[in-house]
């Protein structure tokens, strides 16, 4: 067997080639972007990532020192406060980024998974924050747990997800949920690099001529017509650059 044949049958070669195809060459960490990427909306996306990194860093210190450290140490109180306020910044920036991408219809052009991973990461982050409220080890967390258990019992999940069990909530908060949110964020960034940033709506969809517009050339010389569009507009010119989903 030739060496090349052996390489083609290797799972490591296959995995390496699959990973190299995940993001187009030069797009992992690009130094130039299309002009429409120059927008504050993406600054808030990057600020969300920065806040997430600080959440992980401060949370790691709190894990090392223990859940009650911040009650007895001024340094612990400071680290706990930076953990809280980085979460506040995380959500603030993420919501601004989310609103911007929603009004851009950022799921266009086969970017549905990019949108979905961001949206699910947002929902997962809310769950992570709620378990953080339950991990304060004070009367506030006790009150929140007492309220939350009624809501969760009413939908039948209280036996599996017991908010009165501080140990379970703490482990969900410091291990399981951050792992899920972190994986979703990594996938989201990879998908952004894979598919590129969504172009502006008016740059992607050329306006169809009005139905009552006068014809400037005989019908036989016009472009072939595309099938009827889902929104009911029939007969718009077939354009190879239309990449709507």
């Amino acid at each position, binding site marked *: 067997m030739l060496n090349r044949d052996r390489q083609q049958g290797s799972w490591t070669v296959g995995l390496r080639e699959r990973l190299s195809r995940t993001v*187009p060459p030069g797009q992992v960490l690009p130094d130039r*972007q299309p002009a429409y990427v120059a*927008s504050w*909306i993406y*600054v808030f996306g990057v600020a969300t990532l920065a806040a997430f990194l600080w959440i992980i860093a401060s949370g790691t210190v709190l894990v090392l020192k223990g859940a009650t450290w911040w009650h007895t140490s001024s340094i612990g109180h400071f680290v706990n406060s930076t953990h809280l306020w980085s979460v506040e910044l995380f959500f603030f920036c993420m919501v601004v980024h989310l609103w911007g991408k929603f009004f851009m219809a950022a799921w266009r052009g086969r970017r549905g998974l990019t949108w979905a991973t961001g949206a699910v990461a947002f929902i997962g982050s809310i769950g992570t924050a709620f378990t953080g409220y339950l991990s304060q080890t004070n009367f506030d967390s006790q009150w929140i747990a007492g309220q939350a258990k009624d809501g969760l019992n009413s939908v039948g999940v209280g036996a599996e997800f017991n908010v009165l069990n501080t140990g379970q909530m703490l482990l969900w908060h410091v291990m399981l949920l951050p792992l899920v949110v972190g994986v979703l964020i990594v996938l989201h960034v990879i998908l952004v690099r894979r598919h*590129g*940033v969504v*172009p502006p709506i008016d740059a992607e969809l050329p306006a169809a001529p009005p139905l009552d517009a006068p014809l400037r050339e005989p019908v036989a010389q016009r472009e072939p017509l595309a099938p009827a569009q889902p929104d009911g507009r029939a007969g718009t010119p077939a354009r190879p650059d239309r990449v709507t989903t």
Partner: protein
Amino acid sequence: MITATGLLGGHAHFLHWGVVQISLANLVVILLMLLVFALAVLVPFPHTPPARRTSAPPAPAPTGEEARDAQP
């Protein structure tokens, strides 16, 4: 002296509007997010001078995968 503890450590102020009630702090944060969003949309983004850019080729948009998908 006004401190963060003094502002945030006291009793929460709630606003009531029919069945809707919201704490003043949450309302302020929501209004701030709306204000920042409006600024993010309206304020022009500063552009990098062309002389500071490298000679690397610009990013393709749409990507090759999308161009293939868009073929009639």
